[in-house]
């Protein structure tokens, strides 16, 4: 294993990034903004375009979708899990801890799906609770792993978005 690489990350690049942001915090400003464009593809299907990537969204057949892809709330859960994976690996790497395996299981409970269908005015259609369990295989001691996990949760962008009630600014534009 190269001494300039840990957990599949280049330590040199990581140090350069941290060094640049420390020296000039403004240089990190572009990293504060993220975009996505989502195009309807018929039925409940849609395609999201993000930088040079794209991915589809659909609903399961139990919700009259074609079940060709995960649905939006599943992407929220996956985004949270993915964010914790990134955070855990970053925080482990910063401490020089080798991670042998990592897996995150996320389970969300919607408050009341009936509100989504307009069949109830009790509660709301959003997630009431999201449970996250992270499985890690590493030789690091328990105290270090606990610290990594704590930092991961505290610094997770998606975790913070969900737990801090982000302001959503809606707008619509119609053409005929």
């Amino acid at each position, binding site marked *: 294993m190269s001494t300039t690489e840990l957990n599949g990350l280049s330590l040199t690049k990581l140090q350069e990034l941290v060094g640049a942001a420390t020296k000039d915090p403004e240089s990190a400003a572009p990293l504060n903004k993220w975009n996505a464009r989502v195009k309807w593809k018929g039925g409940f299907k849609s395609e999201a375009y993000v930088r040079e990537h794209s991915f589809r969204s659909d609903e399961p057949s139990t919700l009259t979708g074609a079940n060709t892809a995960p649905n939006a709330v599943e992407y929220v859960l996956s985004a949270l899990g993915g964010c914790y994976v990134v955070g855990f690996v970053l925080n482990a790497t910063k401490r020089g801890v080798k991670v*042998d*395996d990592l*897996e995150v*299981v996320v*389970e969300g409970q919607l408050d009341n799906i009936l509100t989504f269908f307009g069949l109830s005015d009790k509660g709301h259609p959003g997630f009431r609770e999201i449970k996250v369990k992270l*499985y890690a295989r590493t030789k690091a001691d328990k105290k270090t792993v606990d610290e990594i996990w704590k930092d991961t949760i505290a610094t997770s962008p998606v975790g913070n978005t969900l737990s801090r009630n982000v302001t959503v600014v809606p707008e619509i534009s119609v053409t005929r």
Partner: protein
Amino acid sequence: MAGEAFQTSVVGSWPRPDWLLDELRRKNDGEMTYDEFSEKADEAVLLAVKYQEDAGLDFITDGEQRRDSFYSFVVDKLDGIKLMTMADLMDYIKDKSRYEQMLRARDVPAYAIRTPVVVDRITKKRSLALDELQFLRKHTKKKIKVTLPGPYMLTRASWIEPLSMKGYDSREELGKEYVKLLREEIIQLRDAGASFVQLDEPSLTEVVYGEASMQTFMCAVITSKVEPKEELTFATELINGAVQGIAGVKTGLHVCRGNWSRKEETLLSGDYGPLVKYFQQMKVDQFVLEFATPRAGSLSVLEGLSSGGKELGLGAVNPRTDAVETPEQIASRVREAMKFFDSSHICLNPDCGFATFAETPLNTPKTAYRKLLAMTTAASELRKPMEGRVLLERPPR
């Protein structure tokens, strides 16, 4: 092949010491060779043997100390097959949501479950269990039992079509390869002094009960759903191919309902009834079955099996509980079995191994030892009234 009544043995595995698990991880991470690991495991085998001898078992195993699990260890012995995690195999799993449910029920990450996958033509690097037997022979004078994964279990678990087609045109062709391999192995083990060779086929219950239960064997998830009749006929052919006509060694078949967790509700339930007609066609001497757990149902379904002269390896203690069965409880279970089998055709064993999967032992060595002791005490008590009498006596129905 029957001899003295109520012969005792473990099903196979014994809890591994923590230091051995560390060494096993190092081997699995490629930090040491199998031979280096095996040399270290010698000490753990001696410990497992000591416990079994002190408990007074008639047959001794090596506690499967050198194995990652009862079947995945074959990757150390064969080329053309490699250990892959369920995370690696995610893309090949057809029913992903069922698979996800199972992982959640077992509270395990996908990377923790490893299965051997055929990725090329299989060739032997070394014998599957001859090294285990040879070491045991140097260190015990007791009769030796060797466990091997059955041909159906191996075929079912290791056939991942997109990967395995590189070596074999079909699952059936792969099955024949395992039959040839196991047959050679059994003969080799017999010639080297094994008294009892047991084939492990736990997934047979999955074939009949898997769909009815949410929890099932991981290997079954990878493959598409199977038709029980066809599948059990296929399994019977494979098992017979491996054992038929081999004399001079007792052959056994172990069938349980899963042994990965102490949560009984995550394991399969249902009696052996649907399997009996296939058992009757199988050319093994002994069926090593669960009966300590109520999930295994009634012994009475085996009635048709005893008339064929088959032996019963009666599951007398539950490997997954802290409570140690009393000799009286065990004897009572044996008396129930005596309604259907001659005494000389009844052997005693736990329901399954004490650590089928190395990383998830189901009991401590101390409790396991106490369970074995209860079993051997029951066996010697049961033998007492028969001394000087015909052992084949069958109690009135």
